[in-house]
């Protein structure tokens, strides 16, 4: 990551998880994830999801799984809010905004306000739940890494009986 994304996004909610790879996922998985995330929220269209996907996977992070991790940390709502805000700001800067666009903007601003309210209400428990889930996954990962590490040391380190004996007994 080049740092611009973090600068734009602000401080992550769970900085200890940033940069941790939980697995590579494709755009379809991310889309499903986003749709599930936004299932109960109003005003989140496919267009916005596509914007997030395009933004995250192509321009900023480059790697989809890193992008996915960001969304796994409870930042999702913030990100969506900011994307909407940027769209609004960008549209306002336009010299001759069309009436239709203004209408859209108003609607978007309303959506943003609603979203922010909902996020304010639901972010903390949701984030806590996600953090707990991630902590569990982390524990499992650590356990697996430990197991893999152990077996790796005992299996990979020698290729024959003589090699084993030479390494263990120095003869």
């Amino acid at each position, binding site marked *: 990551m080049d740092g611009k994304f973090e600068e734009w996004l602000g401080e992550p909610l769970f900085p200890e998880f940033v940069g941790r790879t939980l697995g590579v996922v494709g755009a379809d998985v991310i889309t499903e994830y986003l749709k599930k995330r936004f299932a109960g929220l109003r005003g989140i269209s496919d267009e916005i999801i596509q914007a997030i996907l395009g933004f995250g996977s192509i321009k900023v992070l480059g790697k989809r799984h890193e992008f996915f991790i960001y969304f796994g940390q409870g930042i999702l709502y913030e990100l969506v809010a900011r994307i909407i805000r940027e769209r609004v700001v960008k549209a306002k800067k336009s010299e001759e905004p069309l009436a239709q666009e203004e209408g859209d903007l108003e609607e978007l601003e309303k959506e943003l306000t609603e979203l922010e309210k909902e996020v304010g209400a639901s972010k903390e428990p949701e984030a806590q739940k996600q953090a707990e889930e991630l902590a569990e996954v982390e524990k499992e990962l650590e356990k697996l890494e430990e197991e893999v590490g152990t077996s790796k040391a005992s*299996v*990979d380190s*020698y*290729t*024959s*009986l*003589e090699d*084993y*004996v030479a390494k263990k*007994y*120095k*003869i």
Partner: protein
Amino acid sequence: MPAKIQVVELPLEITETSDIVTAKTTTANIESELFEIKVPRDAVYVFRENVDSVTVIPYTNEATPTQITEGQITIYLSDANKMTKWSLAKAPVTAFSEIQDKNKLYFWKKSWKATSDQYILVTLYSSKTASGSNSKLRITGIQVIRVPLIS
């Protein structure tokens, strides 16, 4: 990348009755084999310095065997074709005759290993003829065995 293997280590005690031991009859006044031990396939025997010991008690090749206390015992490691031999221990017969007292056992002076198909040869040079069938043998060590990978 070389294939991976899994190994298991087990205690090793070779005696005159072990399957891998062949008892022989020696010739008087000629250094000749008393026991021949062949290391099995997919195994390496490890003998640790000052930890593992060897006991050889030769008996005469007679109807009523008597213990031989005169002469010299040499233990060799040999390749599968017995073309090359390496001397591992060489001492008077009595040096190897203790079987129980840890303070008197003959411990290996240096760690060594015997790999698959190699021979461990116990030879005797004595004025008397010894019979391996009547004699006693005890060698301790560790056997490292290759086991199939379970995937």
